[in-house]
């Protein structure tokens, strides 16, 4: 490139001196507004470095003179939120479960808190709406294994079922077939018997054979008529609700294997107010008892 720069005639702009097949490249200067914004950005960046956390170092980073930290801000916000909730939480801890459910304001708070707690903790097994599934009880109907009163629900949540807690609710359905307590033929007969007491057509001869077997092996927990017992979490066998399925194969399977689910003792994780809110939420959505 020569020292003297050529100026393009028609535009009055200098050229870069590059030439391809007689076509020269104009060296149009940057627009002034663009340049000033560019300088402004540089100035902004320098100010930003001084004020805000900017440069990484070997041990941490330059904090900036404002000492801004989104982490600290989060902690502050959470603290403020907690303080805001203390008032209602206190009201909750001073009130009995019945009072909470009768007081519209407390009830609304408990329902709202309960709903989010349920979604975070209970929905994994019981379903987002509490509708349950096979092996996981439906919490929206009026059928309860361990009782559906406010106190019963509170106890079940706090100590769990077959959980790692000395006060946990516990019962064990024997695996009559798998553990060879009863021979396979008798398990078949008992299956027919359970089908019969839940108001469906069954083999009359098998039902007759199984009647004494039921009294000897099952009635202790499920009751003489198979109506269930909430003290042992023993389900009612005469209704239309089945935790592990109501068809012959499922009933046979349950007598053979004697399954029982585990519900964690949430008292280890939640404080009393949280459990209260959850209890009111579950009780209210099940229609109360």
């Amino acid at each position, binding site marked *: 490139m020569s020292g003297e720069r050529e100026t393009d005639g*028609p535009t009055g702009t200098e050229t870069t001196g590059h030439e391809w097949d007689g076509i020269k490249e104009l060296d149009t200067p940057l627009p002034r507004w663009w340049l000033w914004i560019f300088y402004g950005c540089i100035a902004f960046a320098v100010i930003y470095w001084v004020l805000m956390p900017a440069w990484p170092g070997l041990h941490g980073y330059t904090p900036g003179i404002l000492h801004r930290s989104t982490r600290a801000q989060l902690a502050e916000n959470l603290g403020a939120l907690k303080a805001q909730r203390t008032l209602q939480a206190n009201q909750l801890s001073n009130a009995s479960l019945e009072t909470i*459910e*009768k*007081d*519209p304001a407390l*009830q*609304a708070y408990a*329902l709202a808190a309960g709903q989010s707690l349920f979604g975070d903790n209970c929905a994994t097994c019981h*379903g*987002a*709406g*509490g*509708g349950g599934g096979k092996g996981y009880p*439906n919490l*929206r*109907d*009026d*059928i309860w294994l361990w009782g559906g009163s406010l106190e019963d629900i509170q106890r079940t949540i706090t100590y769990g079922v077959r959980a790692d807690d000395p006060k946990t609710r516990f019962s064990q359905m024997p695996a009559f077939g798998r553990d060879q307590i009863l021979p396979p033929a008798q398990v078949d007969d008992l299956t027919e018997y359970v089908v019969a007491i839940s108001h469906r057509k069954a083999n009359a001869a098998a039902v007759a054979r199984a009647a004494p077997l039921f009294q000897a092996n099952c009635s202790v927990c499920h009751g003489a008529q198979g109506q269930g017992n909430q003290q042992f979490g023993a389900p*009612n066998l005469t*209704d*239309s*609700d089945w935790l592990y399925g*109501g068809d012959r194969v499922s009933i046979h399977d349950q007598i053979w294997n004697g399954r029982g689910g585990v519900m964690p003792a949430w008292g280890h994780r939640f404080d009393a107010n949280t459990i209260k809110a959850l209890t*009111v939420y579950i*009780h*209210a*959505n099940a*229609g*109360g008892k």
Partner: protein
Amino acid sequence: MDDAPLHTVIDTRRGRSGTADVQKPPVSAAAASRAKAAHVTGLYKPRTPIYPKLVHGRWRMIKWALLAVTLAVYYITPWLRWHRPDGLPQQAVLVDFAGRRFYFAFIQLWPQEIYFVTGLMVIAALALFLVTALFGRLWCGYACPQTVWTDLFIVVERAIEGDRNARMKLDAAPMSWNKLWRKTSKHLVWLAIAMTTGGAWIFYFQDAPTLWRTFWIGQAPTTAYLSVAILTFTTYSLAGMMREQVCTYLCPWPRIQGAMLDEHSLQVTYRKDRGEPRGPHKKAETWTGRGDCIDCNQCVIVCPMGIDIRDGAQIECINCGLCVDACDEVMLKLDRPRGLIAYDTDAAVVAHSEGRKPVYKFVRARTVYYAVTLVLVSGLMIWGLSTRVPVMLDVLRDRNPTFVRLHDGAIRNGFTLKVANLSFRPETYEISLTGLAGAILKAPGVDATQAGLKLTVAPNQVTPLRLLVSARPEILTAPSLPVVFHLRAGKVKADVASVFLSGAANPQ
């Protein structure tokens, strides 16, 4: 390269009347700007500063009056109080975003009732259309905030720097102490006005006396300070710096108005049938064989838009009538009839030039159409507001689980009812259900009932109600059954249809 820059194309749309202004030096700022633009190849059309001269007269008086009225309405409205029950805002006009309510004296609107605001917008638009079709751009000339604040800023400018000639001289003069203090104080007063404008705005959104206190001690919300800052900037730049450019380049209304105006619309009109041929006139000369226009340019130098009205109707003209006053003053001195420039119609000008008596037609297809729709929409609004039911009921059916089967075979659905009490007193509503014979309603903490239940809602509040509805399987004849929730409190009622899912599609 084409030597005509792109923006000159825009100017060719205008039909130039009478004497060609190419030969004479440009008289108006707009014409000067056009002439300048023809020689400059740049991105922007350079602005030629406009120094409107003070004028006295009928239209100027009306403009002063409207300036005072509109500014008073703007500044005073948020300070008007209105009695409402305890706990509710006592401000007559309040847009309460935080509380999600809009208060306008005795009217109180919820966000769900945004259609009333839509109605108000439609009414405003139709009224604007109607007024424009009848009388031209009266809004632009007299009531538009851009016009009002620009006028106010020019008042300040005139008070500090003097009238047109003094201002032109000052701008042309080199920097001096006189120029410095005048310019500085002008901009300071402008900034003060701009800040007051932004300051008044925020009082529409929060309780004015409270905000007035908190604002000065730094305790007002950040948005309040931000709003003041933004509106200070926009007022200062729009009314102080950009002025007529806002109307000419930014505002869509001048472009829309073309569809409203026709040859029977009243507009600021130069009666060219009377004025032409124009030319200077000496005292003793006769008026026969020449026009009344003496080419004194008074109409041009008073124009805040910097145009020459004698070029005919043009997009920049805001119909403020200041040139009418200026011309009338001259006509008075010359002992000629006033109204050479007047609110008149294109049709009248044609009639005059053909020697006919002009006919003014205010009843035209478009004015009738605008008036009828305006009456219809206004009627609809009044009907809507007067028959407004002070309660809202929303019914949300549970979607998971859609239904549950109870131990006795009954089917139960869960619903959440949202009851909004729009009135200013607590209300107790009776809630019942029809469509399901023998259905049982149950809400948390309330005993189950067949008749229905009661719910008390605090004034101006929404209360959700969980409602479990169960029905005997015998009556459930279809997978989904229509039901209606009823809400009653005296004469106030709301009925909302929903469905009850019977589970018949999913037998166990």
